[in-house]
């Protein structure tokens, strides 16, 4: 959410400028280098996790001992139970084994293994963020190309103005407002959860029930991020506007509308879509507050509950899974980009 709108133009230039190296990259080495990059990022997440959860919080046993009386033997026993009496490198290898076997320990709040909890909630978050991402990207591309084709027009000024205002809105506040207006006052949509208290058994009715519960959270997430996507697509189309092939297309006598749709937009799409995927982390992070406000049973709500505990094993689990999802999304975006854009294949 702290990704700023205005510098995207900057990044766009850096992004498109970087593939000008006159070097032919084979498919395999491209794939391996991207995979390697993702692996390094994941390793950094895991390292960061160890630092944040095992070193920064200090001694958890000391915290417990402050709250209730413990004999020195009990303290020693607790420490050996938690593996704190081992040297740091051994704690680190234990931690690595646990992360790779998805063993994040037991949640303090739920009293169940963290991996199970995350497994239960994972797809709910993917459903919510995936739907939002598809809608936000479609809307962003469509509005962005319209605005970028005629910069300075009324449509462009309204779209860019909306983008600036929406970018200044905290996600959770927009969620609260929608909850208040459409859930509270108008009562058009359910205000929380993923299904009604007694979900319908008929599959079609169940789908409709879930869809009704999704409306407000999805609208919130789309509203907050689509503005960034509009600006990306707008900048990308404006880059293409001065290209020679558009002069050719016009010289052929094509209508303005066709020049835009058949020539400018397809070329502007590629860098824009890539950048949108790069920014998808912001959308996924928005799930934390949106799910909290609408009590959507997903990873974001788990994160919120982990904070209020604080339930460090649960927080560690959601942190690692959130990061892994974002890194995987970026990897997929990179691979699709190469399939779509022959310029990258040529290097």
């Amino acid at each position, binding site marked *: 959410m702290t990704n700023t709108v205005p510098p995207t133009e900057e990044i766009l230039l850096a992004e498109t400028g970087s593939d000008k190296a006159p070097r032919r990259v084979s498919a395999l080495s491209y794939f391996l280098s991207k995979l390697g990059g993702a692996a390094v990022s994941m390793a950094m997440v895991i390292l960061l996790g160890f630092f944040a959860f095992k070193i920064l919080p200090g001694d958890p046993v000391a915290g417990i001992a402050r709250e209730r009386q413990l004999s020195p033997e009990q303290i020693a026993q607790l420490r050996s139970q938690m593996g704190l009496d081992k040297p740091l490198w051994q704690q680190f290898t234990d931690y690595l084994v646990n992360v790779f076997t998805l063993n994040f320990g037991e949640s303090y709040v739920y009293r169940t293994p963290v991996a199970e909890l995350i497994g239960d909630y994972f797809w709910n978050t993917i459903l919510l963020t995936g739907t939002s991402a598809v809608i936000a990207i479609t809307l962003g591309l469509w509005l962005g190309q319209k605005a970028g084709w005629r910069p300075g027009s009324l449509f462009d000024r309204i779209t860019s103005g909306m983008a600036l205002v929406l970018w200044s809105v905290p996600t959770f506040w927009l969620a609260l*407002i929608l909850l208040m207006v459409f859930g509270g006052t108008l009562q058009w949509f359910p205000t929380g959860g993923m299904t009604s208290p007694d979900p319908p058994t008929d599959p079609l009715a169940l789908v409709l029930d879930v869809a009704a519960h999704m409306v407000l959270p999805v609208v919130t997430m789309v509203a907050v991020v689509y503005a960034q996507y509009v600006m990306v697509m707008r900048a990308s189309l404006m880059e293409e506007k001065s290209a020679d092939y558009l002069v050719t297309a016009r010289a052929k006598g094509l209508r303005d509308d066709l020049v835009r749709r058949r020539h400018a937009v397809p070329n502007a799409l590629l860098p824009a879509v890539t950048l949108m995927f790069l920014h998808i982390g912001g959308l996924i992070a928005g799930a934390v*507050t949106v799910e909290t406000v609408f009590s959507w049973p997903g990873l974001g709500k788990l994160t919120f509950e982990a904070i209020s505990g604080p339930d460090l094993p649960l927080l560690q689990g959601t942190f690692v899974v959130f990061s892994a999802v974002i890194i995987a999304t970026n990897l997929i975006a990179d691979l699709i980009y190469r399939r779509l854009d022959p310029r990258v294949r040529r290097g």
Partner: protein
Amino acid sequence: MSAHVASRSPRAMAWARRRTAFARFAREFSRSRSGMVGLVFLVVIVALAFLAPVLAPAWMLDVTKVMDSPRFAPPSWEHPLGTDHQGRELWVRMLWGAQVSLLVGFAATAMSMIIGTIVGIAAGHFTGIPGALLMRLIDFFLVLPSLILAIVLSTVLSRGVWTIVIAIGLTSWAGTARVVRAQTLSVESRDYVERSRVLGAGHWHIIVKHLLPAVLPLVLANTTLTVGSAIISESTLAFLGLGDTTLQSWGAVLRNSMDVSAATSGYWWYVLVPGIAIVLVVLAFTLVGRAVETIVNPTLRSR
């Protein structure tokens, strides 16, 4: 004319040049209508935040002193912005909250700018493995959503306003670093830097005398934009219950409003007032930042 200039010391000449550059910058900035609107608004808000103790003495925030004031009073002549769940005037809480929100916004931004500038210049200046590693680090922090990392940091560290500042500062520098790196690379290839290097200038000299002055205008533009997003981050962390409970930021007010389910109980002013305050201030920072960016970054000027 030339004799007059030559009689002055290089330092004085440099200052004269900076003064004219600043005057030109101020002239161009004053031509941007949206930038000026944002700036004037921010000056007023900062002044109000400073004057908070005068306009609304601290006792007005003390729950025990406002016992006879009605709870959840909607906005009226008596209670301009309404009252909260403990009978405190919302406008008083907004004024005091402005202090905390702005302070956190500026402090976190300062930290983020310092890290971003240092890492960005280093990534652009040092070639080979150190540069590549730093670039990797920047990309990593760019992709990883800062909010999630900030949540983790402020949960595991002890609660407090400086924890929030550190959590936001440590997680929001990557965008700046990227812009600074790009600018460093382009300055690095210019002749005057090359000349300086041939004459035997070390890393320190090149960084401080050539690279830093060249990237600072961009950092300045980024600063104004980052303050806005830092204020949003602060309010989000406060809303999630990670803020300093003894301090009243705008996010903390929103957190209180959720604790009493103001959104679903019809206390609309309790949700609207702090939110609109955040939106307006962030919007003002964005407008100023964009105006500055258009001036200092000539590639954007045509747009």
